[in-house]
Structures are given as structure tokens and as C-alpha cells.
């Protein structure tokens, strides 16, 4: 009897994955199939690869992604170790500082990097790698941090009493224990760098184009939709398969999730210097942005800020900042309302069937793996008939934002959901709580950290999203990133300083949202 009930529960929880599947199907899979069947010219499936620009883009994508990933993981692993094991002054602030960039709008961060890098480094591979480190180090901290944080200090002590030197302890205990987390951080970092778009458009340059840029160029500049779609599908399949294989090989080990008090050991000088340098790396671009927003040639001026805040009227610049903030906020809230329940429900399904983990994680990454230009075009020709003519609906934008945020919501929710002991559910049931009551009174409070992290992620992803938004937006409902881009498209001091001011406001407000909502992060 008991066995039978258990069985039933597992089966029904499996259906919780349906909303997430619908979201991915509606925003990515169906549109892409429709686009593929209507524009692909069969000859292009093979011939597109013969263009030298396509090959160059492939090679460069791969090269810069490998380089960026290697550095990000290296620096991230060192930083994560110290952040997750040692107590020091400003630790929480530091974690926030490192974590926030990942969700920052690329348009704004690109502006910040341009403001701080010496001219010689603009449009170089080095600039791209630096920006990728800036963005993605948080993946390592977020993924590996909780893992290492849960290692008992005494386990390391026991290795040392067995004769392991500090270096051997790293090699034989710490790294193996963090291995799976590091692998998964590596996969995600590589994916983010390989498909990087915003950063490359700003910091890249002639010859430094990724596959996503090449897709854009083919579709938009050359009008070669067929070739662009072939590339987009190839890239998507490649990423999906990689994720499938990658996460399949390491889906067996359960994530231990036991938050532990940070040890009271003090940092020695060398790691202190390292962390200080890293902190500088994260703050300097923002300070440079602040300076750039108030600097015109040889004078300091607040005009950019005044125009941005609407205090000063400026001929030729016409936007309503409050409206933009309202629009951004509205989209972000709706996107979160969709992504959070969908993502957490799917996570439930996942936590009961770990075997489907790899398939699902490869599946939900799809909307992120397709170039925004192609998604935009695909959606356009898919939903163009009554009653599914969604093209003119503003709701389309937050729905796409939700699909983009979905994998991140799920990643942050998975450890929490898995950390809820099954016995607790059973205990609640024996006390007479029905499934809904049990959910509301027992699980929901325990899910709080997952909800807050997921909320922070989905709000921030939506606030900064540019690619899909720029494709589908309305004049009266422009978001802040759209306004920033259009300001940087004008000649003159005031549009430039106003754009810098807007970027800084977007960065700071996103950072504040993430830090306030996500205070209970797990490291």
C-alpha cells in the first residue's frame, strides 16, 4: 500500500515539467522548426560552411571561449575556495560584487569596459576575455561555492594527519570533492562565452566575430536568412548535445547541501592580495562609468544626469525615463511570475527523477542557445495567424525573458529542492496535511532560498535583456537597455553622458535588486 502510494507520487510529480516544456516549445522549438522549414534552402546546409567568414567565426568562437573559460575557471576556483572557507572583513559584499555581473546588462557593462580599458586594448581578444571573466566568474562562485562550503573542516584535517601536504590535500581531496560542480561550471561558462553576443558587438571588432555575430550578419546585412538559420540550428544542436553528454556523465552524485558556519581561519597575505585585486577588477569599470557619465572633454558636468532624470529638457533627445523604468519593471515582474513557478515545478520533477536531469538541462538551455536575431525572426513568422497572432502583443517580450531566465531559475532551485528531506514530507502527511496544505505550510517556507535566488535571477535577466527586446519593442514601451542603445547611436556630448548615466543606473539598480533579494545565497 505504502509502496503503491509512493509510486503514484513520483509519477505525478513528473508532470510538473510540463509548463517548462511548453515555455521552451513555444519560444524556441516550434518557431525554429517553422523558420527552418520555410527559409532553409537545402543547398545551404552544406554550402554555408564554405564561406571564409563562417569558418573564421567558428574558429574565433571556439578560441575565445576556450581562453575565457580557462581563465574564468582558474581565477574563479581560487576565489571560490577563499570565499567559501574563510571569514574576512567584507566577505558578503565581496560575494555580492562577484555575483552581480553575471546578470548585468551587457550593453551597460560593455560601456563600462570601454570607459576603463586603455585604447590599445579596445577590440582585442584580451578585452573580450577580461569581460567574459568579469561576467562569468559568478558561475563558478555560485556553483562550486556551496559544494566546498559543505566540506567539513575536519575532513581536511584528517587528510593532513594522513600525511597530505597542502598541495596534495588540494589535489586529492578538495578538487575531487568539487569536481562535479567545477565541471558543470565549466560547461556553463563555455556555453556563455561561446554564444556571447552583446560583449562581442561592443568589445569585438573586425575579425573578432563569433558565430552569433556571423548569424546576425548573414541574416541582416546580407539577407541570407537560409544560411543564418542553418548556422543557428547547427549551433543549437551542438550546444544541446554537448549539454546532454556532459551532464549525463555526471548526474549520479547527489549534491550535498549542508550549509556550514564559515571556519574562523584567517586569510594569509597572498590570498588577501588576490581577493583585493579581484575586487578592484570588479569595481573599477563601474567607477570609470560614473566618471564618464559626468565628463565632457575637459569639464565636469551633470547635464547627462539631468537629462536622464528628466530635470533638464534637451532638444533632440526624447524619452521618458519613468516610463522606461515602469516598462522594464513590468516586463521583469511578469517574466519572473512565469519563470519562477515554471522553473521550480520543473525542478521538483527533476529532483524525483535524476535520470532525466541531463535531458532536461539540455532542453531548457535551448532558448539561450539560439541567436536572438533568429529567435526574433522565427517567432515572427510562427505566430502570425489568427488567433495566434502574438506578434503585436507586448506579452511576447516577458514570455521570452522568462524562457531565457528558466535555466538559471532551475539551477538555483535544484539544490534547495533536493535538500528538502523526503521524511519531512511524509511527516507532514502523517500529521494530516493534504498535498496542497503540505506544500504551503512545509515546503514553501523551505523553498524560500530557491525562490529568492530564482527571483533575483529572473528579474535581473529580464532587466538587462537586449537582443530579443530590441526586435519586438514598441516606441511607447521601450526598456532601459533599448534607450541606452539608442542614446549611444547619436553624435554629441549629451547623448553620450546621458547614455553612460543610464547604464550606471541600470547596473546599480540591477545589482541592488540581486543583493537585497538574494541575501540568503548559499555560500
Amino acid at each position, binding site marked *: 500500500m505504502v509502496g503503491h502510494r509512493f509510486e503514484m507520487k513520483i509519477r505525478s510529480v513528473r508532470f510538473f515539467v510540463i509548463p517548462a516544456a511548453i515555455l521552451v516549445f513555444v519560444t524556441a522549438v516550434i518557431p525554429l522548426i517553422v523558420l527552418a522549414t520555410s527559409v532553409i534552402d537545402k543547398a545551404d546546409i552544406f554550402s554555408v560552411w564554405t564561406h571564409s567568414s563562417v569558418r573564421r567565426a567558428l574558429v574565433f568562437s571556439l578560441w575565445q571561449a576556450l581562453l575565457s573559460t580557462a581563465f574564468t575557471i582558474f581565477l574563479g576556483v581560487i576565489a571560490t575556495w577563499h570565499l567559501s572557507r574563510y571569514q574576512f572583513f567584507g566577505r558578503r559584499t565581496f560575494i555580492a560584487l562577484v555575483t552581480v555581473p553575471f546578470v548585468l546588462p551587457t550593453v551597460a557593462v560593455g560601456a563600462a569596459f570601454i570607459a576603463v580599458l586603455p585604447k590599445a586594448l579596445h577590440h582585442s581578444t584580451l578585452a573580450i576575455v577580461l569581460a567574459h571573466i568579469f561576467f562569468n566568474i559568478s558561475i563558478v562562485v555560485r556553483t562550486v561555492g556551496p559544494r566546498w562550503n559543505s566540506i*567539513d*573542516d*575536519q*575532513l581536511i*584535517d*584528517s*587528510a*593532513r*594527519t*594522513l*600525511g*597530505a*601536504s*597542502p598541495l*596534495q590535500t588540494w589535489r*586529492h*581531496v578538495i578538487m*575531487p*570533492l568539487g*569536481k562535479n560542480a567545477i565541471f558543470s561550471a565549466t560547461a556553463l561558462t563555455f556555453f556563455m562565452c561561446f554564444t556571447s553576443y552583446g560583449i562581442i558587438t561592443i568589445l569585438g571588432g573586425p575579425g573578432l566575430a563569433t558565430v552569433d555575430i556571423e548569424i546576425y550578419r548573414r541574416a541582416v546585412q546580407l539577407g541570407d536568412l537560409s544560411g543564418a538559420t542553418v548556422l543557428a540550428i547547427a549551433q543549437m544542436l551542438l550546444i544541446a548535445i554537448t549539454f546532454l553528454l556532459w551532464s549525463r556523465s555526471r548526474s549520479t552524485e547527489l549534491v*550535498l547541501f549542508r550549509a556550514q558556519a564559515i*571556519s*574562523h581561519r584567517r586569510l594569509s597575505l597572498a590570498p588577501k592580495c588576490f581577493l583585493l585585486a579581484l575586487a578592484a577588477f570588479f569595481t573599477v569599470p563601474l567607477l570609470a562609468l560614473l566618471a564618464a557619465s559626468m565628463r565632457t572633454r575637459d569639464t565636469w558636468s551633470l547635464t547627462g544626469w539631468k537629462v536622464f532624470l528628466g530635470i533638464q529638457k534637451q532638444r533632440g533627445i526624447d524619452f521618458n525615463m519613468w516610463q522606461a523604468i515602469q516598462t522594464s519593471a513590468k516586463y521583469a515582474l511578469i517574466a519572473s511570475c512565469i519563470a519562477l513557478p515554471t522553473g521550480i515545478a520543473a525542478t521538483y520533477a527533476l529532483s524525483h527523477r535524476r535520470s532525466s536531469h541531463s535531458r532536461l538541462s539540455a532542453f531548457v538551455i535551448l532558448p539561450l542557445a539560439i541567436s536572438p536575431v533568429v529567435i526574433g525572426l522565427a517567432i515572427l513568422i510562427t505566430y502570425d495567424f489568427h488567433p495566434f497572432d502574438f506578434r503585436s502583443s507586448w506579452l511576447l517580450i516577458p514570455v521570452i525573458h522568462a524562457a531565457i531566465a528558466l535555466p538559471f531559475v532551475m539551477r538555483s532551485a535544484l539544490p534547495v529542492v533536493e535538500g528538502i528531506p523526503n521524511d519531512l514530507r511524509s511527516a507532514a502527511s502523517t500529521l494530516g496535511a493534504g498535498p496542497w496544505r503540505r506544500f504551503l505550510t512545509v515546503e514553501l517556507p523551505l523553498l524560500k532560498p530557491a525562490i529568492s535566488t530564482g527571483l533575483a535571477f529572473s528579474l535581473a535577466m529580464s532587466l538587462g535583456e537586449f537582443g530579443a527586446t530590441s526586435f519586438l519593442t514598441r516606441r511607447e514601451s521601450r526598456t532601459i537597455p533599448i534607450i541606452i542603445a539608442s542614446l549611444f547611436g547619436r553624435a554629441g556630448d549629451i547623448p553620450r553622458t546621458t547614455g553612460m548615466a543610464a547604464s550606471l543606473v541600470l547596473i546599480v539598480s540591477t545589482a541592488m535588486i540581486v543583493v537585497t533579494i538574494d541575501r540568503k545565497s548559499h555560500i
Partner: protein
Amino acid sequence: MSLIIDNISFSYGDRTILNRLSLEVPTGTTTAVVAPSGAGKSTLLRIIAGLFTPSSGSIILDGKNLSLVPTHLRSIGMVFQDNQLFPHLNVYDNVMFGLRMAKTEKMIAAERCRDLLNLVGLSEIAKQSVATLSGGESKRVALARSLAPSPKLLLLDEPLTGLDSELHDRLALDLQQILHATSTTALLVTHSIPEAEIISDSIHRLQTTVDIVPDGEKK
């Protein structure tokens, strides 16, 4: 291989946990220190292992002052209260760990490992994951693991706490025999006098020389 603890003091913040403690463990014997919990027993072991630095006093092993020797070079094994087996390694590899760190030759290491597993009676489950072990089995693995690199001194921190009474008694006897068979110099800390009586050759009580501080054990 005798151990001399000479005038050790230790404080954490403004709390004194050990106050001028002296003790000697003769070669080849097992000495027990018995004290109520919170008396700084674990702290003492950690100081001996070099995991904590004492505020004053010295640890002398075989006539050599260990003050400046880092933990991994002290050749002091330790069995932790909750075993601390490596979760990513199976039983065999846990026992092999110390031998591998010392870069012992493979054949010799494998043989020693087998011998020890035989000694603690776990040869059949050598390939099992440590997550599947019972409390008693885990303790035996921990013991075998710390004996493997042939330490000059073995430290045992409440080795039998938390085991049920039947297992407790059997393991106490086993422990005594194993330590005897390997003629290991060992220092045991425990709160239980009967336990100490079974396992050890001599018993010391932590009393007058130590300020007993409630809740005084701190990492």
C-alpha cells in the same frame, strides 16, 4: 617512540581551554585521557597533531620538538570522532590514502592495505562506497586508514561514542587487540572510564591542571 607533552596551554579568545598540561605516553603503549566533555580533550589532540598551535609549551615526539613541524610531516595519525572518511573514495582507497600521499611503492602499499583490511575484518567490502557503511564499519575503516602509513603515534578522539552498546563493547575489545597487535603508541581521549579501562594500558584524568570550561571545544 615516546610522546612528551610539556606544559601545554591553549586559549581561544580570552577563554583558557588548556592550562599548563603535561603528560607522557610511553612507547608501544596506549594511554587514555579521561575527562568530561568540554574539557578540551579534542583540543589537546589537535595540538598534538599540529592542527592547533598552543599558546605555550611544547610537544616532543622521540626526543624531537614538533613545534615547527607541519601536520603532514609529523607522522601522527588521528581517528576523528565522526570518522571523516573521504566521500569520493571507496573503502580501499580511503585506507590507501595515506600510503599514496607518502608515495609508497604500489605493491607494498597494496599489500599493507589488504593486511589492514583483514585486521579490521573488512576485506569483503573493500570496493564499497563509504556512504553505505554502518557506524561500526566506518569506525574500522577510519582506524585502518590512520594505521596504514605506520604513524609514530595514533590519536583517538572518542572512538566509540555514538555506537550502540553491544557494538561498543565488541569494538572496544577489537581496538585494544589491534593496537596491541600493531604495537602502536596511542593516545586516546574519552569521557568514559570503562572504555578507557578496556582499551588502554594507563589512564590519566584531566582535573586539577586544567580549567574546565563548559562548551570549551572550538574549532
